[in-house]
């Protein structure tokens, strides 16, 4: 039995389920408690678990992340919320230099079981400081796992897996997907694992890899391509670190064509890293040059048409795949 629920709402469901089975889980962030979250993603938790386990904080992101780290190494299993992923900038040191390195630098004395949730992504007119693909900022920092769920089911599962993980996990919740609908996975005990991609759609001509918002555009593009006789697989990696290269490679064994679409500029992106890993490790698999469709190399503009132009479009994907398949 499952009910229909949206991406926004499933977050509180997942956190509540985790909190019910594990008293060490606490939630900490700005207005996550009494107000139910700036995005209403934590509604109900304060009422159920009270102010000791659902903590409203001052506007102090460094203290939020650092306190979560301090709690994690002393026995708790905190979930910290950084409202907009862009604010990871103000606590970057805590995430990259402290949280990511603590276990390693101390010679593994303790693990760091904590989750940092943040709302990422463009498309809704929040402007350059509230729309970034900040998941890319942390790719070069060893010690963090990074998940980027696109569906209600993946968000539920990955959030549960993140909270259960003994490593720090960054969970990016895409704010332009809040209205996406899916099912509450009642009574599940196995969760979408970190590090495993989803084959959204199989295909034999080209393998399109995309996350979150771009996954949906990839699926749309695949449908159009199908009408033209091009069979496109769509793979959603769901996790950026550690990346499930194997699922991509296995699809490439059939398609021999790699097309990566990402909501991020090219330089220093997960997409470029994937392309690089595939060509350095599996060159012989490719029958055509890989394609990387990225967002534009400019800050996210505010005006509607500009912001939409910044994002890769369905049409961009269709044209690129068409060209690639004609190679």
């Amino acid at each position, binding site marked *: 039995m499952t009910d229909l629920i949206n991406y926004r709402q499933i977050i509180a469901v997942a956190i509540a389920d985790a909190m019910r089975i594990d008293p060490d889980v606490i939630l900490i962030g*700005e207005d996550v408690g009494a107000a139910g979250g700036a995005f209403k993603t934590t509604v109900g938790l304060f009422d159920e678990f009270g102010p000791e386990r659902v903590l409203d904080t001052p506007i102090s992101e460094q203290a939020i992340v650092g306190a979560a780290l301090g709690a994690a190494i002393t026995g708790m299993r905190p979930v910290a919320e950084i409202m907009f992923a862009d604010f990871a900038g103000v606590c970057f040191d805590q995430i990259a230099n402290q949280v990511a390195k603590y276990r390693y630098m101390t010679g593994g004395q303790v693990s760091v079981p904590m989750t940092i949730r943040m709302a990422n992504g463009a498309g809704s*007119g929040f402007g350059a400081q*509230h729309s970034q693909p900040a998941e890319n900022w942390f790719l070069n920092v060893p010690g963090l796992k990074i998940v980027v769920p696109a569906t209600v089911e993946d968000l539920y599962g990955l959030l549960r897996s993140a909270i259960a993980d003994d490593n720090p996990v960054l969970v990016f919740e895409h704010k332009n997907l809040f209205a996406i609908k899916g099912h509450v996975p009642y009574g599940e005990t196995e969760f979408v694992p970190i590090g495993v991609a989803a084959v959204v759609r199989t295909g034999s001509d080209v393998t399109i890899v995309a996350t979150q918002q771009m996954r949906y555009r990839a699926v749309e593009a695949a449908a159009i391509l199908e009408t033209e006789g091009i069979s496109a697989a769509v793979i959603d990696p769901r996790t950026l670190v550690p990346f499930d290269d194997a699922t991509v490679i296995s699809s490439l064994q059939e398609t021999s064509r790699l097309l990566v679409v990402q909501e991020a500029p090219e330089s220093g992106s997960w997409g470029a890293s994937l392309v690089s890993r595939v060509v350095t490790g599996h060159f012989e698999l490719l029958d055509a040059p890989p394609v990387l469709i990225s967002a534009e190399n400019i800050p996210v503009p505010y005006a509607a048409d500009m912001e939409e*132009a910044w994002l890769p479009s369905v049409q961009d994907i269709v044209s690129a795949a068409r060209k690639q398949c004609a190679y």
Partner: protein
Amino acid sequence: MTEPVDELVPALRHGAPSDSSQLLSEMLRIRFFEEEVQQLFSLNLVRGSTHLMQGQEAIPVGVSSVLFKTDTMTCTYRGHGAVLAKGAAMDACFGEILGRAGGLCKGRGGSMHLTDVSVGALGSNAIVGAHLPISVGAALTSKLRRTGSVSVAFLGDGATNIGTFHESVNMAAVWKLPVIFVIENNQYGEYSPVAATTPISRLADRSVSYGIPGVFVDGNDVVSVRAVTIQALERARSGLGPTLIEANTYRQVGHSRSDPGAYRPEGELDAWLLKDPILQLQNAMIASDPQATSHIALVREQVKLEVIQARDRALSWPEPPVEARFEDVYS
């Protein structure tokens, strides 16, 4: 309250001496502007989010009424009022919020980023506290170049808990820079009352950490705000360094877009509505001159017209050409 030091007080933006009527009209400009933005937002003409400041108008107006155009100012996403008071063109403010080509930032910034460097409005910032060090840098230029200009930074009560606040006031104090930090204490940071996030009730007391004056003022009384600003300006221009002003006020509207305000205790809003800064100034004007009523009505009408016309001009502007998005990123 000190008497204004005449030579330090510039004329108001419109050139007239700064009298009550002028102050009223400045506050009304903001009030009506914000009401229109709220309307435009509800009509889906504003993207993302918008943070309005009805009820807080006396602070930017009181402060800016004694600033020169060459003085600089930074503020927050809740900064429409501050930017208007500093002298930005109203239609261009509307235009930016609407994402139009004629907007202050050519439609690339949005509601949280109104900026007009030409009038010294160096930026509204969407990251809490991030504009504070920028205002320190503007003051550094003033000191090094000996321009005499003062740098004003508006911030929220909640922003006094973030690291940049501490670093910025400290740096300004140790270098004795001409900065005025003005806390717009509207009692809430998003949905959290000050007491839930801040262990002291008088935020101006944080000045002790920096060895600078901390001044508490009724932020709904435009004349008092102006008076304390004059003192802070004097101090700044004499090279004595920054001042921390806490202006007490109330955000009469939601934090942003859809905010039912369930966190407000019963009756709180009503009590504050009685202390509305515009209402208070109007009452004071009427108290000192019963004939003022009709004058006030006239001012309101004029300002309303100005706002509507500015809005309509902005609405008539096109969106920016989409190719323009590649401009101004690397030169």
